[in-house]
């Protein structure tokens, strides 16, 4: 029914690895545009002020203005700096954060012409350990950046960061040992499969303590408030990136967001069932995500229409241009999404074109994952504007005297419960 070459493309593992790469890049690099906007407007709303609301509808184009500003600034290398390391340090931070995403599965297995595929860049059988190994390299970017700047404040910031990241690395690793005991695998996709079904199969219900420790440590790993001692604007100017300007600063900045994005995805994969909807099989039948796909399209169409209505209101158009263009585009998207959903249902794709249906099911899973991910990314921002920064001794006390013993205790308790067959 379909040409040979199309089938060849569809059954090539490179096609799906490339698609996984696209998803990964959209979530990390392209997403930064949305994340910076979300951070700035989220901060503003929590502080009861409007925030950047001038460039584009809802101020969404502000991130582009920020990027242009950064790119056109002078790239200063301070006197006495180690030029080579000064240039390399931001790249290390970014590379490390981006590398982790290679092992993250964005969807479950789906079948095409009798072959099984998964949306994952690199399907390693030690995926989990790879993450731990790579993420501990992130400290090099910060430490070298601070040291090579030939600035005391930068050095102080990077020293703090070194101590902090090493301390929290331990509780992060140990909290994951508990998870490892429960799922009995180091492959991330198998971990997600273990969380299928009822909501109490989710890692957060099975190992709540591990979840809390993991979440806290991942905030410390990403150098976010309340653990942003590395930057500590009020004490260290800007910490390790004081002496960075222009695109090198931008690279550090982007690295931080990529790190947050990766942490958020990992939280979803490990503790919140990845791409699973709880009780999906019970409610929607044997192939729940394939069944859900058209309804997802209808839902997306509805959301687009609501945004289009909101953005075209006179109140939203006071300060910004392009609202009506956005509304028009959104209406177009909504229309085509609804039309596609209708075609999908009318054409009975699920029984007539099984390969298309399984791709659609995969897309549904990706979208479910992204929605959960969005919540945890917002949590990063939300926490940042809620909690004050820890003092250095408080940080170390929390890391070594609270988190580490708790993580060890968690391993013991989880081990006993697993042996007793409770988990």
């Amino acid at each position, binding site marked *: 029914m379909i040409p040979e070459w199309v089938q060849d493309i569809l059954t090539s593992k490179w096609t799906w690895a490339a698609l996984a790469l696209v998803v990964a890049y959209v979530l990390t690099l392209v997403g930064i545009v949305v994340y910076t906007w979300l951070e700035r407007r989220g901060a503003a*709303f*929590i502080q*009861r*002020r409007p925030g950047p609301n001038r460039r584009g509808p809802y101020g969404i184009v502000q991130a582009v203005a920020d990027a242009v500003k950064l790119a056109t600034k002078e790239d200063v290398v301070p006197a006495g700096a180690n030029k080579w390391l000064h240039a390399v340090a931001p790249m290390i931070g970014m590379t490390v954060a981006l590398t982790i995403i290679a092992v993250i599965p964005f969807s479950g297995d789906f079948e095409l012409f009798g072959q099984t595929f998964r949306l994952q860049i690199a399907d390693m059988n030690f995926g989990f350990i790879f993450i731990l190994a790579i993420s501990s390299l992130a400290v090099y970017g910060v430490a070298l950046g601070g040291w090579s700047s030939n600035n005391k404040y930068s050095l102080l910031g990077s020293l703090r960061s070194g101590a902090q990241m090493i301390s929290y690395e331990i509780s992060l690793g140990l909290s994951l040992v508990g998870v490892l005991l429960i799922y009995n695998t180091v492959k991330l996709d198998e971990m997600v499969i273990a969380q299928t079904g009822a909501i109490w199969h989710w890692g957060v219900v099975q190992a709540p303590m591990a979840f809390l420790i993991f979440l806290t440590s991942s905030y410390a790993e990403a150098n976010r408030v309340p653990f942003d001692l590395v930057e500590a604007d009020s004490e260290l100017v800007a910490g390790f990136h004081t002496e960075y300007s222009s695109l090198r600063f931008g690279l550090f900045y982007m690295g931080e967001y990529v790190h947050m994005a990766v942490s958020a995805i990992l939280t979803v994969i490990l503790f919140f069932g990845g791409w699973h909807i709880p009780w999906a099989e019970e409610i929607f039948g044997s192939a729940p995500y394939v069944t859900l796909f058209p309804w997802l399209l209808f839902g997306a169409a509805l959301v687009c229409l609501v945004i289009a209505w909101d953005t075209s209101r006179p109140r939203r158009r006071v*300060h910004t241009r392009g609202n009506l263009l956005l509304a028009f585009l959104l209406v177009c998207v909504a229309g085509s999404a609804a039309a596609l959903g209708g075609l999908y249902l009318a054409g009975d794709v699920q029984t007539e074109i099984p390969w298309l249906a399984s791709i659609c099911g995969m897309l549904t899973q990706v979208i479910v994952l992204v929605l959960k991910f969005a919540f945890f990314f917002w949590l990063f921002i*939300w926490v940042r*504007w*809620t909690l004050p920064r820890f003092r250095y001794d408080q940080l170390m006390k929390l890391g070594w005297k609270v988190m580490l013993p708790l993580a060890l205790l968690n391993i013991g308790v989880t081990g006993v419960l697993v042996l007793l067959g409770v988990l």
Partner: protein
Amino acid sequence: MGVKQIHRPPQNAWERLYVFEIARGLGITLKHALLSWFKPGHMPTYEYPEVKRPLAERFRGRHRIRKREDGSPLCVACYCCQTVCPPQCIDITAEESDDPAVMKRPREFKINLLRCIFCGMCVEACPRDAIYMSHDYELADRTREQLQLGLDDLLENQDNDEGEG
């Protein structure tokens, strides 16, 4: 050197767990975020260039000089403001007036706004209530010369605001 002891309120066991208190804090910030989103009109901020804060009646903006009925300046060039001006930003040159009822009038009346500290003492000193400070506070300009006010600048836009009265 005295050491100030800060006594922090004692925390009970529930608060020392932090987790629930953090959740409570997150609830508070979320409440504010949602309020800002759904009721933007209730924000305590002004969308500045379009919406301006209401000014106090006695607000001291850039100076103006009142005019007589015939449009000539009310100023009699007595040099009181120039004398009292703390940063000495006023520079008056007097000349004889055509009006037999008035002795002098200013030929030049220069105010260096870059020097001015907007203290309002010139207004206090003026015996004829000729100089006053308007509500005009958007004073940025591109060159220094544009911020040296002359007599014409001080006499224009009289109708826009009443000033101190």
